[in-house]
Structure formats: structure tokens, C-alpha cells
């Protein structure tokens, strides 16, 4: 490999720190592990090509989270377009309904959360996912998304409210 030992070590350190975060966030955004891996792969390859430009580990972390988040959002937009095109042609129903009997109560709850997350507006979902699955603070999320802490706080709150609203519609008992 043509990179220096320092670069290789930096890449590995960044990978160890960031991969669990970006794969969590992108898996939640795309609702697919396979898609999340593809997105993370693309983001990390891009990072490799910019190792010279991003020598700092903290910067690399923010950069990778931002890029992988954008790639994941692009992925779901593309999927939506494809689904619409298929629906137009094949007139298939929007989503296959899974019988409640095939799922345990816990699995059902998880599926409800997943479905509800998919329906939350993108700007709220991204913040909520970064908070819940990325374990980031409001400040970190704000730095990555270019938002103020106050804005992140409002989006996290609205995202959570929206999530609860959707879960209650699906029979979720919040208490």
C-alpha cells in the first residue's frame, strides 16, 4: 500500500472509533445493514483518499459522520424514487404487512420503532438517530450538521415527539 505507516495507523484508529458510529447511524437511516455497510465502505474509501487533507482524528470523525450521513440520505432518496417507479409500473402496494403472529412482542416493538423512524421527517430523524444511536452530544451533532446547539435540541425534541406520536398510532403504550 502506498500510504505511510503514520497514515495507516491513523486510518485504523479513525476506523476503530468511527465505524461503530457511522454504521449505526447509516443502518438507522437506510433501515438496512447491507446498505449501511455499502455507505460506510464508500465513506471510508473517500476518507482514505483525503488522508493528507484530514490529518486530525477528531476532524476525520466529524467528516466521516457527515459524509456517511449524506450518502445514507442519498441512498434512501434513490430507493424511494425506484420504489415509486416500480409502483407506477407494477402497481404494487407500498409496504408488505407482516402478521403480528409472526413476531414476538419485542420484535414487534422494534419493528414499530424502525417503521416510525422511517416516517419521521429527515431533519428530525437525522438528529434523533445521531443522538440515540451515535451517542453524540447536541454540540457534536450541531458541529457535524452545521446547526446551533439550540436547533439540535429543538429537532431532537420534535423528532422524539413525532416518534411517540407514530408509535401511539401503532398501538404503542408509552407508559
Amino acid at each position, binding site marked *: *500500500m*502506498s500510504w505511510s505507516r503514520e497514515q495507516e495507523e491513523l486510518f485504523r484508529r479513525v476506523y476503530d472509533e468511527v465505524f461503530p458510529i457511522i454504521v449505526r447511524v447509516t443502518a438507522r437511516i437506510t433501515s438496512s445493514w447491507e446498505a449501511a455497510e455499502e455507505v460506510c465502505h464508500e465513506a471510508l*474509501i473517500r476518507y482514505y483518499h483525503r488522508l493528507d487533507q484530514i490529518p486530525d482524528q477528531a476532524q476525520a470523525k466529524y467528516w466521516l459522520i457527515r459524509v456517511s450521513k449524506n450518502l445514507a440520505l442519498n441512498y434512501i432518496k434513490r430507493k424511494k424514487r425506484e420504489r415509486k417507479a416500480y409502483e407506477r409500473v407494477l402497481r404494487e402496494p407500498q409496504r408488505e404487512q407482516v402478521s403480528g403472529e409472526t413476531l414476538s412482542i419485542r420484535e414487534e*416493538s422494534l419493528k414499530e420503532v424502525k417503521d416510525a423512524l422511517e416516517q419521521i421527517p429527515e431533519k428530525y430523524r437525522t438528529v434523533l438517530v445521531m443522538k*440515540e*444511536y451515535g451517542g453524540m452530544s447536541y454540540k457534536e451533532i450541531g458541529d457535524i450538521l452545521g446547526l446551533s446547539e439550540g436547533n439540535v435540541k429543538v429537532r431532537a425534541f420534535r423528532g422524539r415527539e413525532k416518534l*411517540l406520536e407514530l408509535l401511539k398510532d401503532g398501538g404503542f403504550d408509552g407508559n
Partner: protein
Amino acid sequence: MEIKPELISSLVDGEVPSPWNEKLLARVLADPKARSIYESYMKARSIMAADDEQLSARIADRKEAFYGSLVKSIESSELSRGRPASAGISRLWSGVLRIPVPAAIAATFVIFFGVIGLVGDPTAQQPATMAAQSQPPALVQTGSAVSNPAVQTLYSTQLEGLQITADQEALLRRLLSADESRQRQTGPGIDVTVNLADVDQLLQLLQGASQIREITIDIPASAAAFEIFGEPALSRAGGSE
């Protein structure tokens, strides 16, 4: 005074600093309405956390294997970048667009039949092609052009200025040959950069090169307005979109 749900949300997120968080939590738990909101937020959070447990296990399982595949990709991209054929040839475009194999194959077929339709009866060219193959020296790398008579009709102008070694020239000749059986005998491809004037010429090149596995198009930074037409699933943006 009523506690705003927004504040409760911040409390749940651990964003209320100490010692205010303890005081606020005590107030929230003492107020039935605020407590109900707090508990619903915590419940939603615990369900999300439960979901995350499954994901954590998967991440732990896949982390090393994923890193291995990542390093492999980097190594292979480095190898292809380091090939000598690419060096020293000026590039028309500076962005990167990767065309996946299915798209390249589809484009090859479309252009192949399109060119057949335009040129006329393809069998009319066969004697010329065969004649060219029976006389390998007919394809001479002159430093500025490739002069295989069978290929010349399609490729003579766009290959002007291409500087390649004798080995690469031989492989390129096979790539551009109309003889399918010979194309399949060739080994791993070389990395050739061709200074093409337009997309039509690229498609013409594709038409004669079924062995091309991946095409990288460099787009100049000045070409700000670049739009991809066709099936988006078949195209993937590269580093500089």
C-alpha cells in the same frame, strides 16, 4: 410552573448539566403530567436501545472482516492507480464517475447494434478485420495514431496522441478487435487513459471492448453542470461527484 416537554427531552438526552439535572428530575417526577411525558420518552428510548443491542453484536462480528475488505479495496484501487499506462497522459476530465459492469455491458450492446445500424451490413467489414488480424504488424503504434485498417474507421481519430508501450499496444489491439474469441483470451486488463473529445467517442471505444471491466471518466472541475441521464441505480458518484 409547568415544565416544558422540550426541557424534559433535553433531560432524557443527558443534556441538562449538573446540578440542574438532579433538581429538574426531582421536579419532573413530582409532577404527574411531566412524569408521564418523561416516562414515555424513556420508554421509547429503551426500545431504541434494545434494538441497538442487536446492532452492537453485529458490529462486533463484522468489524474486522469489514476492515479487511476495506483494505483490500484500497489496495486494488492503489494498484490500478499505479499502473504505468496511466502515467504521463493528460486527462480531459478531473472528476470520477464509475460505470458498473452491467451498465458498461448494456452500453456496449446498445452501441454495437446502433453502430451496426448506422454503418450497414457488419459482414462487409469482416474480411478487413480478419486481414488485419492475420497481419499483426498492420496495427502500428506510430506515436500519434493506431492504424489498424479495420479499427481505423471507428477509432483512428480518438486514439491520436495515445502513448502506449508495445505490450499495451498489442493488448489494446486485441481489445479493439472484432474477434470475440481472441478478446476472451486476454489476461487481466491494462489501465489505458484515452484523451477522448466527446462521449460518442467513448461509446465507440466501448463498442469494440467487451473486456473493459470498469470505466473511469475524469470530468474537469470547470464542468460544473454535470447531469446523469438514465437509470440512477446503474451509476454511482465518485469522490468528486
